[in-house]
């Protein structure tokens, strides 16, 4: 293992380590724009130049590998001059339009300017002009003047998605990022290019002018768009999600996430059920708990055999664990059905066909999926009269119009229909009792992804309206029905659940590397 001396600190690193990584291990920051740990190394921004003893010129730290006995200076006078000069060159034709730039606040150019340059431009001539607000793809806008041509986006489309939409056109300081003729940046991961863009050249059209980034609060969460369970920064402002940003987890999603998942935050805030309802009339929780417990108790007394329960693969493991206890200890039914979103698009990278974040969680909590009937069986059972009372948890309507209509029609035949969900105002009007549940942003819990990896997510903000987490709703009903289930915190459920289940908790994501 080569030993290297960085700014006087002796450190031993793996063979093949770059100076930049070795310096990070030794605790020194080497500024860089074009280098990204998941992409190839073009060494074109020249921001990371460091002085290597014996070398004629400065070496790019991102590219050069350490050798045994190497002596590196990352803060020598020569290096500082080079850093200043590179920033001066980069900012030479940069419009410095930070006040109207979405990147401001999380811009490497801003940060490095303050840390390494902080001097006035010596340019007296006019700045070069390039394209502004260029719609390079359906989700991404390009600003040529802000672009520093680090080619992270090009390399992303070459090396990660393999879709090769982007290239550089023109030469020298006229160079711009463009799509190849007839193409646009429309791959399923296109917004990742805006994430990795170190400046405000590529910005998300969805997030455009929505919120200044320094106002955002960030919560570690998991994307609910599909069963892959990409780790995200859930970023919110005033109790509303503003955007998802991928959170580094080498076991799941690396630095990336898909556009569909990224935009799935919109579902959280649309079509919400915010008040407990009884036959279309809003109630408070006290009233609805009493009514519901009474009605459920009567239904069980009348015909416990015709009681059905739809479990949702959208709910967290903790919610499911209480659902299981509620079903087994309070309702005592064994006619279970599994709802959830229908399958959709998948690819061989991150996007999975199963659009439910926690189907594996249902499997883990309930010990398998064999006991569950599907939606078709549910409709058949309702139509045949085998199910007269239905307790439905967070369920999405079937995709095709015919089944959907059959399902909606069948629900009318029920004696008692209790819906416990965050969405579906449509079904909520049909339900005899509608209980508002909150989204994953408003509670904490655990999802198990397609691979069996249990991943915790945290609460970002308080539940909207009168909605409550599923587990609290089950607790209320159970208490009202004389079979109290007592928990105060989610982690109590989690502990008990992990004891009961054989799924091992493996969800702590690794620390993200410096991007």
């Amino acid at each position, binding site marked *: 293992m080569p030993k290297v001396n960085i700014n006087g600190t002796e450190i031993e690193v793996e063979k093949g380590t770059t100076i930049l990584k070795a310096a990070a291990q030794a605790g020194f920051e080497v500024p860089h724009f074009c280098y990204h740990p998941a992409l190839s*190394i*073009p*060494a*074109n*921004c*020249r*921001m990371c*130049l460091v002085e290597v003893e014996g070398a*004629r*010129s*400065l070496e*790019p730290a991102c*590219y050069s590998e350490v050798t045994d006995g190497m002596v590196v200076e990352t803060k020598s006078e020569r290096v500082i*001059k*080079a850093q200043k*000069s*590179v920033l*001066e*060159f*980069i900012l*030479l*034709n940069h419009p410095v339009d930070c006040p109207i730039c979405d990147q401001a606040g999380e811009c490497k150019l801003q940060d490095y300017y303050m840390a390494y340059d902080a001097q006035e431009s*010596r*340019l*007296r*001539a006019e700045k*070069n002009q390039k394209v502004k607000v260029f719609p390079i793809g359906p989700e991404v806008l390009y600003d040529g003047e802000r672009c*520093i*041509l680090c080619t992270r986006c090009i390399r992303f489309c070459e090396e990660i998605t393999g879709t090769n939409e982007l*290239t*550089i056109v*023109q*030469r*020298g*300081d*006229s*160079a711009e990022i463009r799509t190849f003729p007839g193409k646009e940046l429309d791959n399923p991961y296109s917004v990742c290019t805006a994430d990795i863009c170190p400046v405000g050249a590529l910005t998300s059209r969805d997030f455009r002018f929505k919120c200044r980034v320094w106002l955002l609060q960030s919560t570690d969460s998991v994307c609910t768009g599909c069963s892959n369970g990409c780790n995200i920064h859930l970023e919110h402002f005033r109790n509303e999600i503003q955007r998802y940003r991928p959170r580094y987890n080498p076991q799941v999603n690396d630095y990336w996430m898909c556009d569909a998942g990224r935009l799935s935050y919109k579902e959280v805030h649309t079509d919400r059920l915010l008040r407990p309802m009884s036959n279309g009339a809003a109630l408070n929780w006290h009233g609805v708990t009493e009514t519901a417990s009474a009605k459920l108790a009567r239904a069980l007394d009348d015909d416990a055999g015709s009681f059905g329960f739809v479990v949702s693969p959208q709910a967290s493991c903790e919610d499911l664990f209480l659902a299981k206890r509620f079903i087994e200890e309070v309702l005592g039914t064994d006619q279970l059905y599994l709802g959830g979103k229908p399958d959709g698009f998948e690819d061989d990278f991150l996007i999975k066909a199963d659009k439910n974040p926690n189907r594996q969680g249902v499997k883990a909590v309930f010990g398998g999926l064999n006991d569950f009937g599907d939606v078709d069986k549910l409709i058949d059972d309702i139509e045949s009269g085998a199910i007269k009372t239905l307790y439905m948890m967070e369920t999405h309507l079937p995709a095709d119009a015919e089944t959907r209509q059959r399902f909606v029609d069948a629900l009318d035949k029920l004696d008692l229909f209790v819906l416990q969900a965050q969405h579906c105002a449509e079904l909520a009007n049909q339900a005899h009792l509608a209980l508002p549940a909150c989204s994953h942003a408003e509670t904490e819990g655990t999802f198990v992804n397609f691979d069996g990896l249990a991943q915790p997510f945290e609460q970002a903000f308080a539940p909207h309206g009168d909605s409550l987490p599923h587990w609290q709703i089950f607790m209320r009903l159970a208490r009202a029905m004389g079979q109290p289930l007592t928990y105060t915190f989610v982690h109590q459920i989690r502990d008990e659940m992990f004891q009961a289940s054989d799924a091992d908790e493996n969800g702590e994501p690794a620390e993200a590397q410096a991007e």
Partner: protein
Amino acid sequence: MTEEKSDKTEKSKETTEEAAEEKAEETVEETEQAEKAEEGGEAKAAEEKKAKKSLPKPKAAAKKKPTPRKDEKYLSRNFEIPNAHNLDVYEANGGYRALKKAMKMDGEEIIEEVKKSNLRGRGGAGFPCGIKWSFLPKESDVPKYLVINADEGEPGTFKDRYLMELDPHRHIEGCIIAAWALGIRYCYIFVRGELQFAQRRLNQAIKQAYDAGYLGKNILGQDFDFDIYVHPGAGAYICGEETGLIEGLEGKSGQPRMKPPFPAVVGVFQAPTIVNNVETISSIPFIIENGGQWFADMGIEKNGGPKLYGLSGPVNNPGVYEAPSGITIRELLERYGGGMRDGHELKAFIPGGSSCAVLKPDALDAQMGFETMREAGSSMGTACITFMDTNTCMVRVAARLAHFYHHESCGQCTPCREGSGWAAKVLDSIEAGRGRMEDLDLLLDMCDNIQGNTICALGDSIAIPVRSYLQVFPEEFEDHIKRQSCPYPAWSKRKTSADSDAA
């Protein structure tokens, strides 16, 4: 095509004739020498070796009478022979003899001879050819490539086109010898897009070589296959940089690669690749025929062999001339170029293409060798010298060059991309009379910030000349700034020698 060809031969004839008139005495020797050359033979080489030993330094020789040996032509031998681009004429003049000799030799032997010859890369960087060849891995799972850098785009440089247009078979012979020595399977000749005539000539010659069995499968009955392809460039100067060229050859935009790995290890199509200049490879047949030591003797320390020199600017006989390595610039100017034209006084010259530092006439006695030119404060580059007279505005020259490099910067890495345009803007403003004194410091600082901080040498190519104009002619820049205008008349209002004659 024929017109163009005859034009060219006539032109070169004319220039030689003019030179001949002036140096009648030497021309006699030259003809004698040419006769001698036709006799050939080792005796002659040995004799000349002796002559060489008695004259260890060509500089000393230049001060005396030039030895007959120095006027013998090798690289340009076929330039004046009509139709030398055709195989039959080329063979009749001794062509492909070196190849036949080489194919009786071992690859290692050939590399040793080339190392011994002190042949330096003729493209400008001057890397020793034999050493470069020895970097190529012996064993390789993938075919090895030879790439000829014929993207001759350096402003002021025009030597390789002569070799390709007038003596293409010599070049092809050199390629085949290199391939034989190094176990190379394919060769690409990357010709600058504008040199269409050279491309046609090369293609024609390649076809003839295939028909004659010098290319293709089982060359000369041996177990040796070799193919040559001509690849026209698309006009980017940066494709003259070897890794930029490789990218261009692979069909990408010409953006130089980071080194290491060097092309000899990972080159074109990820395979081991040797990139050589046209003139370098065209010199190989002579090394094989006459031996590496012979080649090394015809030059100075570390710089062997005959070399083509280009002369341009207001000289009497601009053109391409062959002379040994180590000749002084004064001799090139006076003996080959015929001195400056009447009414034009030498003010400055660039020794080897626009990316070399500019020199004043006091450096005329510098020898053309990579080390000697560095001592003189510049570099040999492509050895195509641009002379400038006292009518030339150095600020305008610097601005013009900065514009060239600004236009040709590939835009990949920051200092060159942004710095080239900035330097051009600042120099423009000084030339237009809007300069300030602090601009001079700014330019020097900018040059420091570009040089050495870029991926390839194009950044240095901006910094070195711009800095040199500022340092060699500071008074001219200050004059521009003080006057707030350019003291030199515009090109169109320039007095020509014809005007002064009329007056």
